[in-house]
């Protein structure tokens, strides 16, 4: 297996003149999992969609095994279509509501692998259903007749049928109960290990991300503010926002949302640190934009306090 790397630099998604992504770069090796956490609305799904050519980046590149993935127009080149896949955040909108589940499951196989016979496809479909824990009774239903978690698993089966090499999972278990979540995550991890799939795992559940990922990157307002090996980030988050995230996750019960989320009246001058207006430790330095610096073993932080 060759080195799979992904680089997405200086992607500026200019819409109504605000930047949704601001120079995001990272790389994922084969078989590696990169966890992406961050504020809701910070651009995580946008990263995922741009990488797969679903929306064109304003600038920047995506590389897959050193080859450019996106065409000049920002679409994915055809040869990569089967190799890179995404599990969308809202699975209910990823299925065609007028197609029965069985048709939805066969569709990608028909499009991508024309050499399979109908019978082979059916047996493959059966295997996939088993893998994700659905039974045959669900095949004849329409998407609105399934529960949220069941749809999530249909979507997963559908994507696995394409045997992708790189997978983006945008909150794949947000609708599942903890036991099925554990099943799905274990399944995902196993399939990933077997096939050496590179995975970008987006989630809000820090414990889950920690369990799934080798590395974790924290995003805030379109920038990666901290990135470190998973254990390290959960034990020693440095950036004030990462700290807030990790702390507020672990202590929900006593936690009041207001603490640590200061409202400085300062509204982030162009070029300043994005977190300035909420940072309890903000100083004069922070009016300059910090860049990602390596501060420890593979620990990168974008903050002037380092």
């Amino acid at each position, binding site marked *: 297996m060759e080195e799979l790397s992904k680089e997405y630099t200086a992607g500026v998604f200019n819409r109504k003149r605000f930047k949704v992504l601001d120079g995001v770069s990272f790389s994922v090796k084969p078989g590696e999992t990169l966890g992406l956490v961050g504020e809701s609305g910070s651009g995580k799904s946008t990263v995922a969609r741009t990488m797969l050519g679903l929306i064109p980046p304003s600038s920047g590149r995506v590389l897959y095994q050193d080859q450019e993935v996106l065409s000049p127009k920002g679409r994915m080149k055809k040869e990569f279509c089967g190799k890179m896949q995404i599990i969308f955040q809202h699975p209910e909108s990823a299925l065609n509501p007028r197609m029965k589940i069985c048709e939805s499951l066969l569709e990608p196989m028909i499009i991508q692998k024309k050499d399979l016979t109908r019978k082979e496809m059916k047996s493959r479909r059966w295997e996939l259903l088993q893998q994700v824990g659905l039974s045959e009774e669900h095949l*004849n239903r329409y998407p609105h007749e399934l*529960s949220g*978690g069941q749809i999530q698993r249909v979507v997963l089966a559908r994507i696995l049928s394409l045997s992708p090499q790189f997978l983006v999972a945008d909150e794949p278990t947000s609708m599942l109960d903890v036991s099925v979540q554990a099943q799905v995550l274990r399944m995902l991890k196993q399939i990933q290990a077997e096939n050496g799939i590179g995975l970008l795992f987006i989630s809000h*559940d820090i414990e889950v991300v920690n369990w799934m990922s080798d590395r974790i990157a924290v995003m805030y307002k379109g920038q990666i503010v901290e990135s470190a090996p998973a254990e390290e980030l959960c034990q020693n988050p440095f950036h004030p926002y990462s700290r807030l995230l990790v702390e507020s996750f672990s202590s929900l019960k006593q936690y009041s949302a207001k603490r640590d989320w200061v409202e400085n009246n300062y509204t982030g001058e162009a070029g300043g640190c994005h977190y300035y207006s909420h940072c309890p430790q903000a100083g004069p330095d922070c009016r300059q934009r910090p860049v990602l610096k390596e501060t420890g073993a593979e620990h990168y932080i974008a903050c002037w306090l380092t």
Partner: protein
Amino acid sequence: MALLSIRNLTTVFNCQEGMVKACNNVSLDINQGQTLGLIGETGCGKSVLGLSILKLLPVNAVSSGQIIYNNQDLLALSVKEMCQVRGSEIGFLPQSPATALNPVLRIGEQLTEGLQLHQGMVKEKARVIAMDMLKSLGLKDCDKRAADYPHQLSGGMKQRVVAAMSITGQPSLLIADEPTKGLDAVNRAQVIDLLRQLTIKTKASLLLITHDLKVAVALCDEIAVMYSGEIVEKGSADQVLNNPLHPYTQGLVASLPERGLFPIPGYSPSLLDDIPGCRFYSRCPIRNENCKHQPVINREVNGVHVRCLYVDQSGGTQQRIYGRGFQSEAV
């Protein structure tokens, strides 16, 4: 006197393959100002239970039993009367924000629509209230956001818009189907604060459907656990989650990330099947021949209602058996 009491509610879907029994003989009570959490496996019928209360189910569904809200049986109400109850008396926060919003209307319009309709407010006043609500949910630049269409929002933003929509009418009962799904930890804490305030300030009751056990602990007074269409355990939040009695609840708690993500082996039975005994039988670590055939009734153990034949008073011996059985099978 309970604000809402559900008695022997059974909801059945007529499908091609047969009858899908999504709620089976469910009985629950919610008092005024109380928060009841409903947790359970995906596909066990939690959303269907919520929708049954509001009578928002598709045409192939039949509900029987009683749903008594403020001394009237909701199942007996006409469509028009039900419209009155929905929105102004019972608020609903649907599970999928992606499909709950109208894609061709700006979110500001969708938010104020309900207020104008149910409370006869003028547009300007409705707008002020709606914006306040969005702000307290932690959405930045609300005024600008109000002019956006749903596809321009991130997943978590949509979730909060839908949340705001459901509580602007100040309902006396709110049915919230996974209100914190897709939110980061900070926003999640904000939504929890808001729901807590709502229940304290307006004395509203809350039926909280969630998969997030941390949210359930933080908000709920009582928790009901559902499995395959039935309520299998019900008691105070603290007891149910910290000292679960039913083998399913124990398995659920054991599969939390901090406990190492050990799933319950096997899959839940099809809702099409009529099972005479316990529905958890095939996956249960303490099962016994009796469980297969004997109908299981609700028993009360230390104030917790639990549907299992083999729960002893302490629940202690079981836990040990359980722990061993699961860990070895799951690894």
